[in-house]
């Protein structure tokens, strides 16, 4: 059975040892939900949430788009300060600039991640989780009693401290050091890594209720370029590409060229870059006393590159499984494997399907997408849903049939 830890902090020279039940490393959406759910499910346990940066939510390495239904499972976006813009339309842009407006209702939201991530972390803190900012994990080792000893470093250079935890939840994003330290396989094949760059662009003309997605081998090979509105005239404009399919230019150079062509009068503000892992969930997301969630476990929709809702669902699940295991006094890999099984049933198995679809779509060229756009535009605008576009496309473009078959296989 679980015995509460002593609350004292042992001072050992300049080193301080801090014991906790659950240590969550990385305060993004996955980590905040893990900490929140752990405190909600087991208020008597100690939960510590680590953030390397000085403020939760910055810097933003994200296009900030999220689906409506998935978001509402965790928070109400109506009137929330962290919801920058409601999106009701999707515009697909073919490589030859033919636009296809898709009619869907309540598509999603563009978030303000600086505020959204802080909001999620504050909710965990309100339940009693301890948030440590400007603190990074530098390494960890497993002790004979099964607990993990994690070395912590502060930004101030005040020496290392140590935190011992019964369960470590790694929500440290694409770099995934927790998984690496725990011996999990977190490496990514180059063809499944999307290199992304994005500017906030001001003073441009677009439909502020729509997101725009453009495909094309010369625009964003292996990925797509996007415009996500933040307010009228201001948008996140970025792209992701697979470097193996690109010429010698990097993602930022591709983006500069795309913006110069599409939005020549736009004023480019802050540039951010990052990686999106368009792969499937890592083979094993758990080991003795460790769970990994979110980008760190490659829990991203490999077709869209979306990961926020996935991360929140996985983080919540990790928090729940971790606290149940601690209460029962069994944090072994065998016990924690319930997390992996539940994640695969919820979304992981769907990602395997989306991944097969992604690989099948890679074989289609720009000419195909140009002609698909013209087919779609023959459907009356008010009836032009994704489902109808897909049905029409299957009839008129037989090369899509094997693609569809691979999805359902």
């Amino acid at each position, binding site marked *: 059975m679980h015995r509460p830890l002593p609350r004292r902090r042992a001072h050992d020279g300049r080193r301080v040892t801090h014991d906790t039940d659950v240590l969550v490393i990385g305060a993004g959406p996955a980590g905040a939900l893990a900490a929140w759910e752990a405190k909600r499910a087991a208020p008597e346990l100690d939960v510590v949430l680590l953030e*390397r940066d000085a403020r939760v939510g910055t810097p933003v*390495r994200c296009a900030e788009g999220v689906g409506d239904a998935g978001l509402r499972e965790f928070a109400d976006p109506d009137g929330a300060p962290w919801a920058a813009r409601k999106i009701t339309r999707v515009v697909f842009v073919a490589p030859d600039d033919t636009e296809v407006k898709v009619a869907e209702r309540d598509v999603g939201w563009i978030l303000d991640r600086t505020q959204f991530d802080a909001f999620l972390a504050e909710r965990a803190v309100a339940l009693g989780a301890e948030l440590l900012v400007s603190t*990074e994990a*530098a390494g960890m080792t497993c002790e004979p009693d099964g607990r993990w000893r994690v070395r912590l*470093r502060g*930004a101030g250079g005040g020496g290392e401290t140590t935190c011992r935890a019964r369960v470590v939840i790694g929500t440290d*994003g*694409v*770099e*995934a*050091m927790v998984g*690496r330290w725990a011996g999990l396989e*977190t*490496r*990514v094949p*180059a063809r499944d*890594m999307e*290199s*992304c*760059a994005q500017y906030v662009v001001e003073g441009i003309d677009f439909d502020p209720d729509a997101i725009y997605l453009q495909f094309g081998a010369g625009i964003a090979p292996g990925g797509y370029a996007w415009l996500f509105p933040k307010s009228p005239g201001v948008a996140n404009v970025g792209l992701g590409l697979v*470097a*193996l399919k*690109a010429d*010698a230019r*990097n*993602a*930022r*150079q591709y983006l500069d060229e795309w913006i110069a062509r599409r939005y020549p009068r736009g004023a480019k503000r802050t540039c*951010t*870059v*990052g*990686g999106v*892992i368009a792969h499937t969930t890592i083979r094993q997301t758990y080991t003795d006393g460790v769970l990994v969630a979110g980008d760190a476990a490659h829990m991203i929709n490999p077709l869209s590159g979306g990961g926020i809702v996935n991360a929140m669902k996985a983080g919540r699940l990790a928090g729940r499984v971790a606290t149940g295991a601690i209460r029962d006094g069994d944090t072994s890999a065998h016990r924690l494997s319930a997390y992996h099984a539940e994640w695969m049933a919820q979304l992981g198995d769907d990602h395997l399907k989306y991944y097969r679809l992604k690989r099948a779509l890679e074989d289609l060229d720009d000419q195909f997408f140009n002609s698909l756009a013209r087919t779609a535009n023959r459907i009356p605008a008010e009836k032009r849903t994704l489902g109808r576009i897909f049905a029409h496309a299957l009839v008129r473009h037989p090369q899509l049939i094997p693609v569809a078959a691979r999805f359902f296989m």
Partner: protein
Amino acid sequence: MLDAPDGDGYRLRMRPAPTCPEIAVVDLQVCDRCGLCLPLCPPEAIHLELTDLVVDRTTCTGCRKCIAPCPVGALTMVAA
């Protein structure tokens, strides 16, 4: 490279001889610390510290898998 300007020889003491002709180095003026290159590195030779991206020159095998995907071109190859 980041050798001591006064050439006091710490490079020789601190850095064992690398095992390949070329290794990756990062230009910290250009690097945005996004972490994209970490999971791409087959021998896991790259890690991030609070302010710096670090390529371990004894672990890097010179495979170049991190070079092209860097969104800002901060990684380049140099003679080991």
